[in-house]
């Protein structure tokens, strides 16, 4: 089966700095794929290159078998790829409803749009309550919900989520990830999720990749990743206390 999204040997630069050093990965339809990595690993760059905000120097991005690398972002959006950026970035002076309407900007089927808006409200009831409120006055968690809801309004074939847990309380993170899970299960939304919070990401995802310094160092099912010693000690914070019960040093990563 051809993957919905396939990335081959992607290289992206910030001026002279090579942020992606040859990344290849696949996302199959209906799956949730997470890309884990620390600060500066290249996660956001990867999403920006996918959605056309940045152009790759080398490599291919195949979406439904078509090459889309280097295309203008609006064309990428029309192809069905929605990027929910890091830090929400909702339109603060527009109301919740207006933000959602903007999400459906490329569509014209009014009845369907209204149906989708109700669907978004059913997943995020709080947004329904505040539909007339300016988005800038929402809490961080509500803004994140709005950003996801706005993305859904496009009926995307794949959603690229950049750190939805950023700046949110653990409870709110749990809540949002539960909704993402439901969206994937009930609506069949394919997702590519970039996260630093490995615990919630691996819980939600089917497959995962670990990105370090612009290269993929590990890949596999989310279960396999969650059980790897390196993931446990470097991403899940499982401390091996050692013989003295207060170990400070870190083991070397082997990625297996």
């Amino acid at each position, binding site marked *: 089966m051809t993957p919905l999204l*396939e*990335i*081959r*040997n992607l*290289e992206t630069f910030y001026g002279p700095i090579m942020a992606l*050093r*040859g*990344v*290849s*990965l696949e996302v199959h339809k209906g799956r949730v794929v997470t890309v884990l990595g620390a600060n500066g690993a290249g996660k956001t760059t990867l999403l920006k290159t996918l959605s056309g905000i940045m152009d790759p120097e*080398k*490599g*291919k991005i195949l979406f439904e078998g078509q090459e889309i690398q280097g295309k203008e972002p609006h064309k990428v959006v029309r192809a069905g790829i929605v990027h929910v950026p890091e830090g929400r970035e909702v339109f603060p002076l527009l109301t919740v409803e207006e933000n959602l309407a903007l999400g459906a900007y490329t569509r014209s089927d009014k009845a369907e749009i209204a149906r989708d808006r109700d669907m978004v409200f059913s997943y995020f009831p709080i947004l329904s309550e505040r539909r007339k409120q300016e988005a800038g006055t929402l809490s961080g968690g509500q803004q994140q919900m709005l950003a996801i809801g706005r993305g859904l309004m496009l009926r995307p074939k794949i959603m690229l989520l950049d750190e939805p847990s950023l700046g949110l309380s653990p409870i709110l993170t749990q809540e949002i990830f539960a909704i993402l899970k439901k969206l994937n299960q009930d609506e069949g939304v394919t997702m590519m999720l970039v996260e630093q919070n490995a615990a919630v990401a691996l819980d939600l995802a089917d497959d995962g*990749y670990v990105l370090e310094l612009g*290269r*993929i*160092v*590990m*890949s596999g099912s989310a279960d396999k990743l969650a059980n790897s010693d390196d993931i446990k000690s470097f991403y899940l914070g499982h401390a091996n206390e*050692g*013989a*003295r019960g*207060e*170990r*400070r*040093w870190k083991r*070397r990563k*082997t*990625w*297996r």
Partner: protein
Amino acid sequence: MTRHDKIPAMVTVKGTAINAEPGSRPVLVDGADTIPRLFQHRCKQDPARVAHREKTLGIWRAFSWDDYWNHAKWIGLGLKRLGLKRGDVVQILSEDRKEWLYFDMGIQCVGGIASGIYTTDAATQVAYILKDSACRFLIVENEEQLDKFLEIPDGAPGVEKVIILEEEGLHALEGDRYMFLPELYALGQDEEKAAPGSFEAEIGQSAPEDVALLIYTSGTTGAPKGAMLSHENILAAMQAGLRELAVEPGAEQLCFLPLCHIFERNNSSYFPLAARSIVNFAESPETVFDNLREVSPQSFSAVPRVWEKVYSRVLILAQEATPLGRLAFSLAMKAGFARADAQAAGKSLGPIKGLAVGLADMLVFRNLRQLLGMDRLKQGISGAAPISPALLRWYRAVGVPIYEGYGMTENAATCTVNRPAANRLGTVGPVMPGVTVRIADDGEIQSHGLTNFKGYWNLPEKTAETFTADGWLRTGDIGRVDEAGFLTITGRLKDIIITAGGKNITPAEIESRLKFSHYIADAVVIGDKRKYLSCLVMIDQENVEKFAQDHKVPFSDFASLCRAPQVLDLIKAEVDQVNIEFARVEQIKDFRLIDVLLTAEDEELTATMKLKRATVEKRHKALIDDMYRS
């Protein structure tokens, strides 16, 4: 010195008096017949002279021979106060640092035997060595190494005191069994006040035939064995080094390979004692190349893996250069290779080619050498594993002459070496002064000389097996000596494969050819009692990743890189290339890639990053079975 009835004739080499006749006894270096005496002499000779440099908080700081003396003295006396007796083994579990050498000397000066444990060893291996050497005093570097000691299941009851070099993170540590380095120094200072001159008196008791150090050999089969090297062994090695290696007074050196291994130990602990060179300690294994550039050593000895890495880095840099830069580099390489080949053939270049080489050197190679930190290097040494002649030729072309040598722990790493005046690519050179080599009927290389070790610690039977009836050392390697006396290694005796067809094959010969490929880091040839030969290949991660990226081969992690059909084709082409050079029965019919990225911690690799045949065959049995299934 009156300790010896007869003093042999001496000669001064590089400012140091050594035996005029290599191999004559007693072996004297500047009049000293043991390591502690030479150490004492050197420290008193020129105390303010720089002995070591270490980087702290980003700045290289110098430490003098006087520092060396004082700290070694406090360590020696401190250990003595703790109850160290002459002949006791002290184990050092630490990365390279100046204190490693302070301990090496301190221990030996009071009659102890200094031995090192690899920091990459697992707790079980540490436990084995501690028990085997009846170690009472263990030196650990830091928290990480201490935790390894604490993981030993039976608690290593023989160890009475653990001395810790770095206090960081260990303030809560309690118990009489542990001591931090400053406390040991204080103890030594106390002892010195109580009994002045006792350290010098201990040095006076040292004798050439005493065991100075134990080197645990990694042993590709079975448990590690402690090879006992005497003071005389090491002094004989120093003399050979002064004569034929780049052991130079005042030369800057870089210490970065494990000091528990004889190769780095000679280079960084003993040869500097003979030559008064300056040892710079690399900050960590990860920073070696940066440190190399900072230090720009005059003398640099490394294992093939390191030379290969430097080469790969240059190739990658060259490929990523501007088109003009690439053109200049390829033109320069052409001229450089012409020079290398002319040198190898002993011919001189014509005036036009000579001019081209001069230009290439001035415009390209000089910068390159500066970039690598090899602009002052006159005689690089490669040892401990076979190196590709093509790689040596490349280095020759860029103006960095490297000479391949051969030796093993059991002859204090002193056997043969190529040198500026006598160099043949593909051989390991003529014998070193004072050493004799012969080839036995079964092809085994046997060596004789004062560098031959005393035997294995507590293993008289193994020791007896290692020597022939007439006292020559069985190296276990097979090889041949050409008409000019150059030795070529062809394999290991016990690795000889006898195929199901009854054909004897030395795998090392095939394996070295495979390794010469930039894409193959190491390989193990299989085929004992089998119908045909096959091999397991460990790919060179950096170069194969680069290949994949350049050829648009998608891969994610290391395993997926090893699965990529194009990578398999690439390795197949390399294997086919090697097969051409061998007879049909010696050809590799099938291969598999080891798809885990092995690190020094893995049992499959030796300290010099070579694959261990027995372990690899056991761990990757499934891959091997798969090749012989049909």
